[in-house]
């Protein structure tokens, strides 16, 4: 019985993670600007990866694999915000400007 509950919990987490990965992928394709696409990548990195790895941890139980999964989650939680920050800063430094509300109307009238 307890095993069934744990299995259902891990399946739910795996499916939630897969759904968030799909949402992040669609956002990466559909969003209009680079700085909005960083947000889609953030959804993928935190919610998708976190939910799938925690779901795998529930399947593994208290074994060595679980410790490795905790290490992977820790590395991802440290590195993915750092990479996103460095990306946004490099894009700003490289001359990319975020699309703001007023600029959008201007660019529409111009193009």
């Amino acid at each position, binding site marked *: 019985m307890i095993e069934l509950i744990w299995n259902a919990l891990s399946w739910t987490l*795996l499916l939630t993670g897969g759904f968030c990965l799909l949402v992040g992928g669609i956002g*990466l394709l559909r969003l209009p600007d*680079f700085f909005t696409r960083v947000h889609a990548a953030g959804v993928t990195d935190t919610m998708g990866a976190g939910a799938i*790895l925690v779901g795998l941890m529930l399947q593994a139980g208290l*074994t060595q694999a679980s410790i*490795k999964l905790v290490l*992977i989650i820790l590395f991802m939680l440290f590195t993915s915000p*750092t990479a996103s920050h460095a990306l946004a800063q490099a894009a700003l430094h490289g001359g990319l400007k975020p699309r703001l509300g007023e600029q959008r109307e201007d660019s529409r009238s111009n193009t």
Partner: protein
Amino acid sequence: MFIAAAAAILVAMALAMIRVLLGPTVYDRILAVNVLGTKTVLIISVFGFLTERPDFLDIALVYALINFIGTIAILKFFEYGEAGFSNPEVTRDEERP
């Protein structure tokens, strides 16, 4: 259930790959490659559980580290035009007493 998660990861990887190929600026491509690396880590771990060989987690751990370092290195290259070692400002700072 592992198969469903693996299928979702593969579809999301295909979407990110389309963004890599389309991307208008180089930063879009770097972002999409970073996301692609994250999903590679995920699919390596899920595949390890799918085939009941948890040793794959070691590879996933190493891949997560390599992905981060590669992203930062490519970013630094594109931001400064080189990897930063022969930057004139840096050498000037080092020569300063």
